[in-house]
């Protein structure tokens, strides 16, 4: 298990070895690259109450329409 974690960390550390100069980051800066989630608050809440394995987020309170 420890070996796997080390391998994963090394892979992460080397994954971004490609150097991107600031003036080449135009595509990275596009708004569509910055969205944390494609779902809005209403849709996220719907998923949180309808899929037991999605809940757990602190937004996932009641209001599920179930009994």
């Amino acid at each position, binding site marked *: 298990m420890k070996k796997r974690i080390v391998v994963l960390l090394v892979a992460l550390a080397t994954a971004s070895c*490609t*150097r991107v100069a600031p003036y080449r980051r135009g595509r990275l800066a596009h708004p569509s690259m*910055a969205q944390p989630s494609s779902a809005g*608050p209403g849709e996220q809440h719907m998923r949180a109450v309808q899929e037991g394995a999605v809940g757990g987020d*602190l937004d996932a309170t009641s209001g599920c329409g179930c*009994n």
Partner: protein
Amino acid sequence: MRPAAAAATERVRHAAMTRAAAALVCGLWAWTGGAPLARAEIPAGETADQTAGGATIEGSAELSTYADSDNVSVLTPTVRAGIRDDTAGYRLGARYLVDVVSAASVDIVSTASSRWREVRHALSVDGEYGPGDVRGAGSASISVEPDYLSLSAGVRPSWKLDDDHITVAVGYALGHDTIGRADAPFAVFHRTLVRHQLAAGASLVLGPASVLWLGTDAVLERGDQSKPYRYVPMFDPAAAARIPAGASPDLVNALRRDERPLEHLPTERNRYAATGRWLHRSSWATLRIEERLYSDSWGQLATTTGVGYAMDVSSRTTLTPDVRFHLQSGTSFWRRAPVVADTGSGTVIPRLRTGDRELGPLATVTAGLELKILLTGSYATTRLAMVLRVAGLHTAFRDALFISQRQAVFSAAGFEGAFE
């Protein structure tokens, strides 16, 4: 264009790109809200009319609706306002949301209950600060219903490393829920549920057009989250064997025993999830692929896969089709037809029992389409956008009573504005 004007425009564009690139890695960690209505590249035919810098006031409003084949409908208006200054490195925002839920689902009707309607109010504030490589973010929220009160707050610092090629973030949030009954004040009846949420992750710039985000989170829940209204039908062993998935209320009522105890869930639940998200930008579109693996101490396993493709169909219009697949197993104590054992000393009902089909095995497919139209120039000092979204959902319940599938439609319409 004269050379001096062209050079000035290029300087402004470069500044905007650099500013937005700095915001990118932090935006991946934003707690709420969508992407900022940021200045993008200057479209052909437009010129920059201001130098970069200064605060931006942001606001948005959204109305979403949900309706399904199980007679549940939800109307959710949301408003959000905030201020941000990417040069100074801060952002503050607040969001107010109302859920109006109307339900007459089959499991409610099966207990001879009538349609009910409930309203939830949720208010949240969030902020970030960090002009340098270290950034701090925090949020707090309150959600109020007649029988449910939820409070939460959290912090999430992040560090930019390797000349902004890597951003590492950790987070902790605490939630405190008070669960009651609509017919009694909290002073008469309530249960408490406490949640500790821990998260860690990193975003990695893989190249001039690709970003990979890897994260993991754990949620530790302590408290009794059994629904105080949910009664669970019980069966003899012989009757349980005759109950098929999706059995009608009439069949269930014909075969069940008289005992119908309240739901009883374990009072501890540890949830663990790992998420990977890859985004790639071509000259005119952004591909987004996301995978989430989930496991918890109740024995539930899940995988969620999402793919979206945001296409710039014009300089002001973006069209994004997306699909999402969610597959989950049931919890270890899930039983479609719980069995009662008659012993010489009495009747024994299962200690852990639930009728919550969301704790059983299910699969959901979602197909959506989002249209975003910039109503003003993307480099104007006042920027407005309209966002429309519609999604269809199909859920298959593989081992539940009363229902075997559900179809639903979700829609949302919103406006976003940014003012400098």
